């Protein structure tokens, strides 16, 4: 039995086999082959498997994100059957007598480079598609499980690092825990792990040889056991059973109000990052959605999602929540969430850079498409719109002008539009400090404590070295939150918290005392927080 200690991301115990997840794109080795015909047949078989995988992905995507978004997988299959691509591969295998994986990797590189050199951003970004299909075939040929699809047995994913898009792609029902070497406890991937309620550890010196071995992740103590002995397994099975028992207790809080003993009522909402999270929202009895991160629409897409695609997603969320509040945040791309086709420049300080509302206000065509989709969907439920990264009153006025024009345009065309509350994120110190002025402009505030903490304490949340300096309970943050709540109430609007701090159970009573009207937390935290609220005086 080996024991390793890392940094905790999410509590909970997981027991199961390890899947070593790796990209390893650059490790394709060139080999001489004797039997060229057999090698060609190996390639054909791998290609067929890849096409079958893409067909399955296509069907999954049609269910989850709709036909239009799913078409990209069909395009991937067609790219794999492209004559020029296949001719290049078989030609390399035949004339150079080399192994299929090397021929695929080289051909993929050539075609990807050709696209990368085109003068149009959109076509440049297509080189990623060529790389993607080539990687898929190479991984089939080498037998590596790197395509993001997990097998039938639930596994503990061990990886050097995980990008948010990779985390999103994984089938959550087959995922027991994450263990990574890189990444910070405040990175987007760590937040996703908490949202999904999956035990996770970072900062562990991972080894490839662990693939397939049994392991235990203790998310509470930050420990990973590889090849645990019988006694340890039994001990953790017992702990896991206790946790499940506690979860069952929480279940008894379903359907109950989030109200203190003295009658103070709090709206307890959930944060979600994808339509597939709706199930956990309903399962945990959240009273609404306090933060729907619309970025996934952009992150999972190969191109700007159209108004219709977005409308379908927002409509589905609004309908599923059946009249409960659904607060959708407009796109928050930039910083740690990059999308190729946006063609954003590399920045020295991305967190202080061109992101979120700054993109929307300088590229209004993207913003307008999203707003049209949101207002159209508002006729199907209780949608509110929230704008991120606000620093000035002028920005809010500019946003309101655009949104009012979009709304008017729809109404003039006879498109039904519902009542929509419009609010802003308070996640910059500037916004918190002028919250008295901002409160006069909007319907609500939602405090984004992750960025507010990063900007107030001047701490880069992507830098793992700074985790010890990241003091979420810093008096400066608590004073800002108190001030924002007070200014909101004086202007007659409500104030909530949608950052990680909202789920910090040590602070729930402090927030109640500040008069916070709404807490939006990851779905897994809804019932535990409800218990604290109901126990509070």
């Amino acid at each position, binding site marked *: 039995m080996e024991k390793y200690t890392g940094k905790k991301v999410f509590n909970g115990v997981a027991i199961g086999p390890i899947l070593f997840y790796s990209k390893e794109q650059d490790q394709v080795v060139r080999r001489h082959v004797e039997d060229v015909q057999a090698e060609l047949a190996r390639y054909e078989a791998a290609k067929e498997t890849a096409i079958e995988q893409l067909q399955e992905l296509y069907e999954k995507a049609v269910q989850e994100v709709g036909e*239009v978004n799913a*078409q*990209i997988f*069909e*395009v991937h299959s*067609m*790219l794999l059957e*492209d*004559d*020029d*691509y296949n001719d290049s591969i078989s030609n390399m295998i035949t004339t150079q007598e080399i192994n299929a994986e090397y021929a695929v990797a080289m051909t993929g590189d050539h*075609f990807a480079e*050709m*696209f990368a050199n*085109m*003068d*149009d951003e*959109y*076509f440049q970004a*297509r080189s990623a*598609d*060529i790389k993607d299909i080539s990687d898929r075939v190479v991984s089939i040929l080498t037998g590596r499980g790197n395509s993001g699809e997990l097998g039938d047995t639930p596994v503990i994913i061990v990886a050097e690092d995980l990008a948010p898009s990779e985390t999103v792609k994984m089938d959550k029902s087959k995922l027991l825990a994450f263990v990574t070497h890189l990444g910070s406890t405040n990175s987007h991937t760590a937040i996703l792990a908490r949202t999904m309620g999956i035990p996770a550890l970072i900062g562990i010196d991972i080894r490839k040889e662990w693939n397939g071995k049994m392991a235990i992740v203790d998310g509470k103590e930050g420990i990973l056991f590889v090849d645990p002995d019988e006694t340890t397994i039994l001990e953790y099975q017992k702990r896991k059973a206790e946790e499940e028992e506690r979860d069952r207790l929480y279940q008894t809080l379903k359907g109950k109000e989030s109200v203190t003993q003295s009658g103070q009522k709090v709206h307890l909402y959930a944060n979600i990052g994808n339509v597939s999270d709706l199930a956990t929202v309903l399962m945990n009895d959240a009273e609404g959605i306090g933060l729907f991160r619309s970025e996934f629409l952009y992150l999972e897409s*190969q*191109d700007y999602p159209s108004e219709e695609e977005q409308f379908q997603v927002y409509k589905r969320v609004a309908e599923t929540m059946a009249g409960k509040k659904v607060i959708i945040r407009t796109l928050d791309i930039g910083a740690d969430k990059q999308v190729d086709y946006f063609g954003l420049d590399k920045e020295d300080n991305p967190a202080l850079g061109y992101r979120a509302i700054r993109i929307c206000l300088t590229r209004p065509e993207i913003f307008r498409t999203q707003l049209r989709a949101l207002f159209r969907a508002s006729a199907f439920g209780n949608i509110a719109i929230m704008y991120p990264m606000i620093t000035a009153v002028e920005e809010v006025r500019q946003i309101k002008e655009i949104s009012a024009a979009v709304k008017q345009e729809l109404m003039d065309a006879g498109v039904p539009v519902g009542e929509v509350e419009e609010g802003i994120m308070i996640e910059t110190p500037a916004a918190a400090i002028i919250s008295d002025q901002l409160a006069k402009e909007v319907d609500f505030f939602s405090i984004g404590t992750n960025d507010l903490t990063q900007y107030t304490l001047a701490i880069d949340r992507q830098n793992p070295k700074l985790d010890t300096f990241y003091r979420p309970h810093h008096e400066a943050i608590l004073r800002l939150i108190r001030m924002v709540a007070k200014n909101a109430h004086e202007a007659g609007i409500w104030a909530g918290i949608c950052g990680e701090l909202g789920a910090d159970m040590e602070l729930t009573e402090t927030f109640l005392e500040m008069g916070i009207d709404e807490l939006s937390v990851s779905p897994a935290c809804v019932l535990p927080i409800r218990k604290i609220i109901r126990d509070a005086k």
Partner: protein
Amino acid sequence: MVAFKYTITDEVGIHARPAGLLVKAAKEQAATVTIKTAKGSADARKLMAIMALGVKQGDEVTVEVEGENEEQAAKDMQAFFEANL
């Protein structure tokens, strides 16, 4: 041979999704369909070659159809372009 000219109206040009549809449509024809632009030409059955032409909104392309049933094929292709590009 039958040919027609068409100016692309799609915002991003012949991007991945419509290029995929174009390949499908071209494969249904017995005749050969060739797309010509100022930059070069490509067989409409070859997805990468078409995408590599980098056709953008406002670009004019010439579509040449040659072979079996070319009159009808050209009509089908014209209808396809009007509906999708």
